[in-house]
Structures are given as structure tokens and as C-alpha cells.
């Protein structure tokens, strides 16, 4: 992806990239604005529908949650993983659609104090309120680019709840320079998807006029 940076620099686009190391603190998050880029080194958790559901059920029933998510990075991803000997290897790990997790996320953020969510498509509603209240940002990973991201994973540190299936299990991986990732929603209420939505609603009027002629 260095190629990309050269490309952007040639086009005179200055990228602001924050290199973040986990666990991440509130003041790291507060200085980042939507439209800037982040790159993460440290630990990342993969969780999607079923892992969110179970984590919240465990919390409610006061059962032990296998990992401490505080200051962590939550990646909406269900990987392709293969066990070679005793070790798991992540083969492919692109993002999944984040809106499916909106039903869990406000509570998940409140209970587990994660600081960054990575996924695709953005998030809406109460989740955005939680972003502001608990200082969380959202990084938009390009859907379908699963091998590029898998290559930035140094190792699988642990996996729990494999009974849910490989894509739905809870993964903890070690990453180095996991980025650049566009920050699409910041902790101050700026949301790039909202800007697009507004533009699309405006464009729709013109588009329909043209189509129906």
C-alpha cells in the first residue's frame, strides 16, 4: 500500500495518518477527525453478530468474558482461518457490514469500552450517540480487500467461542501498521456517510427528473 501513498502524495493530497498503539486512550481518539486516516499496531478483536450477542448475554448473566476489550479495537470481520498444527492462521479478513451490529453496539461500547470500530458501510442511530458519549471512532475498511488485511496480521493470539463457527467466533490477533484506514465517523459527531446521504437525497430529485423524461 506504499504505492498508494506515493500516488496520493503525487496528487498533492496530504494524508493525516495517526499511528495508534493499543490500548487506546480517550485523548488519542478526541484529536482524530473524520476524513483523516489511522493505522493500528497492537491487538485487534474480531467480532460480529453472534459474538456481540454472546458477549452481552455473558455480561448480563455475570459470566466471565474471555478478553478484556478496554481501549481495544473491534473489527467487524468474520475471517477465513486455518489451523496449521496448533496455530491458527488468518487467510483472509476483510470487513463485514457494520449496520447489522447496530442492535448490539451501543450496549457493547458502554460495557466493554472499546475505542475504535472497524467495518464497512458505517453505522447509524444510537450507536452514534455512544460514539460521542464514550469516545469511539469508526474506520471504513474497503470491503472485499481481505488478503491485504490478512497480510497485516502477525499472529492469532487467541480465539474463543469457536462453537459459533469460524466467522462468528471471537478472535484476538496481533497486528502491525494495520492501515491506512479512513476515519469515516469521529467522536465529535462528524460522519462522512451522513454527508453522502444528504448529497444522494439531493441528487435523487435531478436523477428521477432526467430518467422520467
Amino acid at each position, binding site marked *: 500500500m506504499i504505492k498508494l501513498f506515493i500516488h496520493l502524495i503525487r496528487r498533492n493530497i496530504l494524508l493525516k495518518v495517526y499511528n495508534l498503539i493499543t490500548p487506546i486512550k480517550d485523548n488519542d481518539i478526541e484529536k482524530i477527525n473524520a476524513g483523516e486516516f489511522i493505522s493500528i499496531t497492537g491487538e485487534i478483536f474480531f467480532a460480529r453478530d453472534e459474538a456481540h450477542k454472546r458477549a452481552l448475554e455473558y455480561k448480563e448473566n455475570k459470566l466471565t468474558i474471555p478478553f478484556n476489550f478496554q481501549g481495544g479495537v473491534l473489527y467487524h470481520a468474520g475471517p477465513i482461518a486455518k489451523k496449521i498444527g496448533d496455530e491458527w492462521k488468518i487467510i483472509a479478513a476483510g470487513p463485514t*457490514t457494520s449496520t447489522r451490529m447496530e442492535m448490539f453496539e451501543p450496549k457493547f461500547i458502554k460495557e466493554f469500552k472499546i475505542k475504535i470500530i472497524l467495518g*464497512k458501510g458505517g453505522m447509524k442511530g444510537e450507536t452514534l450517540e455512544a460514539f460521542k458519549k464514550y469516545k469511539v471512532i469508526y474506520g471504513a475498511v474497503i470491503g472485499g480487500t481481505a488478503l491485504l488485511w490478512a497480510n497485516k496480521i502477525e499472529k492469532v493470539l487467541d480465539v474463543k467461542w469457536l462453537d459459533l463457527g469460524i466467522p462468528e467466533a471471537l478472535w484476538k490477533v496481533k497486528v502491525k501498521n494495520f492501515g491506512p484506514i479512513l476515519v469515516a465517523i469521529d467522536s465529535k459527531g462528524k460522519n462522512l456517510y451522513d454527508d453522502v*446521504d444528504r448529497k444522494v437525497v439531493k441528487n435523487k430529485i435531478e436523477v428521477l427528473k432526467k430518467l422520467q423524461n
Partner: protein
Amino acid sequence: MINMKHINYTDELLSKVFFKLIELAATRLPIDIQLELENIYKQETDSLAKLQLETILENLEIARKEKKPICQDTGIISFQILYGKNGPKLDIFRIKDILINIVKKATNEIPLRPNAVELFKGNTGNNIGKYIPWFYYEFIENRDYHEIIAFLKGGGCSNVSALKMLNPGVGIKGIINEIIDSTIKAGGKGCPPYIIGIGIGGGEDIAMILAKKALMIPCNEYNKEPEIAELEIKLKNAINDLGIGIMGLGSGKTVIDLHILNAARHPASLPLAISFNCWALRYSIVKLYNDKIIYPSHKEEYIVEGL
């Protein structure tokens, strides 16, 4: 008399041919889609779109070189078997059994993500489940080959697909409105730039089957009926003018291509099915002839030893 040029379709040969079919679908885009993405990249001037397309193309390159799946979501798997009347003498049940076995093998070896989830028992772990992989069959006269299409359809883009049972009174205008609204609703959730397949008419099942078939019409090839072709092009341009953009971030193209297939309808119904596919349209086609095996979607041939 034995024609020495005829391929002996043993289980072993069919297994290898079908493994390659699934591998092509998972690891490489059909050539027309790959080329169209490269074209779109070359023409793109916006920096965010350019960055995203470059990342997409880089990922495709890794997938091709390392023979690994383009995307971790290797989809729900379906096969179309288009059986040609004058094709090689092959038992269709044998084709089906071997395809199922090869799905298991491919899941383990490529590997694919296990994506078959039973209602109560959870993930089966091998992509084989109740009715999955799904099989479509067609029997075609005057054809000297069998065609098998493997389709790995991702969940994200399937989730934004839509079926609308419209009142016929709304007409073409109503159809256009629904397509635009469904695309806006899909937004960035299904990984645009999309390939959009539209099925109109028939019944609720027929419309959706046509929509999914339409996804596999080659890029920039339009309907033979001029009114439909015109609608395809108009809709494609209109959707790009909406400005949803790559990954819904407002920059670059929203749609790579759009195709419509239609069937006659019941006087009381106007079914409209819209199937969205992410830019990573993963299907592959193999044609089994008496004397050759080709993968036209990927412009590849299977070389049979000793032939």
C-alpha cells in the same frame, strides 16, 4: 467405434475440473469484470475513489498470485447445470454428487469460509447444509456441451437485494422509482461499485432467478430488446449520478454494470427483483465438450492429459 478424441470423464477428472471451477470463482474475477474495474480505475480522477480502486486491484493481484480468496466471504454456493442434449454422456446425478464433494474439499483446501448455517444447529463447518449448495437445472436442445456455473454470492450484497411485488398500474415509472430507492437504501452496505441484476415479471421466484442470472451477463452487453437496453443504460448512468460512490463514501462510481432480464407476468402482478452484487462478482463457468473443457468466464482451458 471409439473416437479417440473423446474425453473420458472419470470421477477423478471431473473432480479436478470442478475444483478449478470453484477456485477460479473464489480467487479471480471473471475477465470482463476485472478489465472493467481496471478501466474505471484509469478513468477515475477523484483521489479517494482512486485510492480505493487501487487497493481493490492490489488485493485482486494478491489473490491471483497466491490463489487465495479475494474476499473472506466466499458466499453461499450455488450451481447451475445447463445440460446440453448432445453433450458428453454424463449422468447428471454424478455431476451433482461430485460437485458436493468438491465443495467440501475446496472449503478445506483453498480454503473457503464455512458459510452454511442451519437454523437450529449452527454452522455445518463445510459449506454443505440443507439445500446448500443449491442446484439449478436446465436442459437445452441443440447443444453439444454441458455448462456448469459456480456462483459464490456474498452475504453483504445479498442482504440489500430486494423483491417488490408492484401494482401493474405503476408501470415503467414505478419500476424506475423502486430501483432508484432500493439502490439508495443499499447505499454502501453491499460493497459498491455494484453489478446490479434486475428481473421483471414472471412470479416472485422467477423475477429473482432472472435478476441473479442478469448478474452474469458480460459487462457492457445489453438486452436484445432496444427498449430494455435503453432502460439499462439510462438506469446505470442515473445510479452513478446519485453519488453513493465506492463503499458508500461518495467518491467514484456506484455501479459497474446493470442488466435487466424479463418474463411475461400475470395480469395482476408486476414482480420486480433487484439483485445487488459487490464489485467482487464471483462466478465461473465451465463447458464440458466431448473433446475439450473450457472456462469461458476466465478464458482458461483444462488440458486433459493424453488427449
